[in-house]
């Protein structure tokens, strides 16, 4: 008898929280905290990691950022291996694949490192804390609300996502579909989900395709920074400018131009710098024994105040900020 699907044992189950947390333990000095983003050449992660660096400096630790130049799980694995070789106290990472880097993370954990994920999670049992920018529910509510306001509560909308297998994107899209079932959105119809692969040109083409395929399209939600910028650029140079509404998750710097020229009314994002900052503090708290990652643990994150660890070791940064004409100039990232 071979190994078949039926008899494969699942290795789920309660993950973390060994030993007890000591909320009063001081943050240790000299902690070696490494940031491993999805990709080092991604401006979003550069900002986030800089936030992390600020926090690490505050707790008098050693900060380091390493990572692959292309967003692939396999290269992340080799970086995790290197980091565990180097005896890091904390590894803060954003996973390119929820499963692929698990083995390496577990080995690093066994070698004594604390694991924090941010932005993009792994399976819960492979890390102690996941610092979530915002709950998926929060994003879904926010995005649907924004588009509904802009198109006046009725009409066809489409979603322009990143890659077809981006975990967080798919979770958000699923929840947006749930959200749209609410009575107040009953006149809004989601016609399709397109994928721009987080590639500028592809997103641009997909936007163009959406507008041609759906002549009655009223709005587009693009919950990805690359997609929303490309879609905005397409709209701003086309006859649809101002007529087809666009919202999504974007950085103020990229979108400033299009908010000012009237292509985009409002969009949202959390602060990537705060996200990195919080993740670094969570890591420091773990390594100092203040928390273990169990539900209910509390820790202080510098200027951001106190946070509580939720179910499955998730810490939520907070609701996203909405940017529009009036406030966008106050943000620089």
């Amino acid at each position, binding site marked *: 008898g071979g190994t*078949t*699907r039926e008899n494969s044992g699942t290795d789920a189950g309660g993950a973390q929280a060994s030993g007890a947390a000591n909320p009063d333990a001081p943050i240790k000095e000299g902690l070696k905290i490494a940031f491993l983003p999805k990709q080092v050449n991604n401006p979003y992660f550069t900002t986030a990691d800089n936030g992390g660096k600020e926090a690490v400096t505050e707790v008098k630790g050693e900060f380091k950022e390493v990572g692959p130049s*292309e967003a692939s*799980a396999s290269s992340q694995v*080799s970086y995790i291996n290197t980091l565990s*070789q180097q005896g890091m106290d904390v590894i803060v990472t954003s996973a390119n694949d929820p499963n692929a880097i*698990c083995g390496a993370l577990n080995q690093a954990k066994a070698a004594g490192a604390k694991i924090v994920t941010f932005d993009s999670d792994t399976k819960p049992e492979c890390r102690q804390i996941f610092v979530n920018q915002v709950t998926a529910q929060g994003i879904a509510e926010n995005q649907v609300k924004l588009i509904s306001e802009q198109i006046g509560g009725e009409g066809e909308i489409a979603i322009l996502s990143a890659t077809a*297998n981006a975990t967080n994107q798919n979770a958000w899209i699923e929840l947006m579909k749930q959200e749209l079932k609410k009575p107040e959105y009953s006149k809004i119809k989601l016609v399709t989900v397109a994928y721009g692969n987080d590639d500028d040109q592809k997103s641009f083409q997909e936007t163009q395709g959406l507008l041609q395929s759906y002549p009655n399209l009223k709005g587009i939600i693009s919950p990805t920074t690359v997609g929303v910028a490309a879609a905005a650029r397409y709209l701003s140079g086309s006859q649809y400018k101002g007529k087809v509404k666009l919202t999504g998750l974007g950085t103020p710097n990229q979108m400033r131009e299009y908010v000012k020229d009237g292509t985009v009314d409002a969009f949202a994002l959390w602060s990537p710098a705060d996200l990195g900052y919080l993740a670094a503090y969570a890591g420091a708290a773990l390594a100092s024994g203040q928390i273990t990652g169990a539900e209910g643990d509390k820790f202080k994150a510098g200027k951001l105040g106190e946070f509580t660890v939720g179910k499955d070791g998730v810490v939520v940064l907070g609701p996203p900020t909405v940017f529009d004409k009036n406030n966008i100039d106050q943000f620089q990232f």
Partner: protein
Amino acid sequence: MAGLRGALGSWDAAIVAGLAVVVLLASVSVPNFATGRNAQFLLLDLVPLALLALPMTLIVITGEIDLSVASMVGLGSTLMGQMWLSSGLSLELICVLVVLSGALLGAVNGVFVTGFGLPSLAVTIGTLALYRGLSFVVLGDQAVADFPADWTDAVVQPIPGTSIPVMVVPVLLLALVFGVVLHATPVGRALYAMGNNGEAATFAGVSVARTKFWLFVASGAVCGLVGVFWTLRYASARGDNATGLELTVVTAVLLGGVSIFGGRGGLLGVVAGVLLLGVLRNALQLADVDANALTIVTGTLLIASVVLPHAVADVRARLHRRRQRAQLTAS
């Protein structure tokens, strides 16, 4: 002096020497490099590259190229995921089927190249896109991850009592097979002959088309194998697995002294080239060198590997001429 010149004359020897120097330097100057654990990580990371480089070496020696290898690995991986997800077959059987489908994909390349007589560079750029596209078609946006832990653990285990991963054993065995075929059999002789001059090889009774066809099949089968390994090692079957690996494979093969025009090179050099690439990356990573600098190093290494021998030969020829002229004027 003579030894040095001999060594420089043979790229195989030079690259092995280069490898030794890099390992030595790294052991001395990079902390954590010379540890068993690191060796394990390093070798494990190199398994796909080493496996793919074997058939690629033979293919490049015949004057062809297979740029679709990484896409075949990706498609193999998603096929494995899809079968595991929905077929109910045993994993053993699935692995065999994946290797066979790899061979089939390679056969498609082979038919286009040898049957229709099309240039392999163009054909495999086509199948590079085709197979990658199909691997997204197979699994779409899903990733299949729930492979049994005993399987996913097995491929990363070290040989008991050592820090060498068990996977090194099949790699070495395959390398031995490919090495013997290339260097000590009639088929190997034929590969060199057809790489240099296909027509003359045909006149000498070599079935050029058939041989190349089987090489592409072999390449596909090895890709299927790597697909299986990749899926199990990362416990994840997804459409973008191994994206972009083809350029690294070609880099390793060229670094190993195989001529891109065919007809020249050997397997020892390629194995050394693969190791050199891996050791260098690993050491630089451990030394906290920026990933971006690493990209530059890879590129520079490749360029140096082809420019240096030429420069050496050039200098030697110039020295020789000068010496000759000196003799002429003296006599």
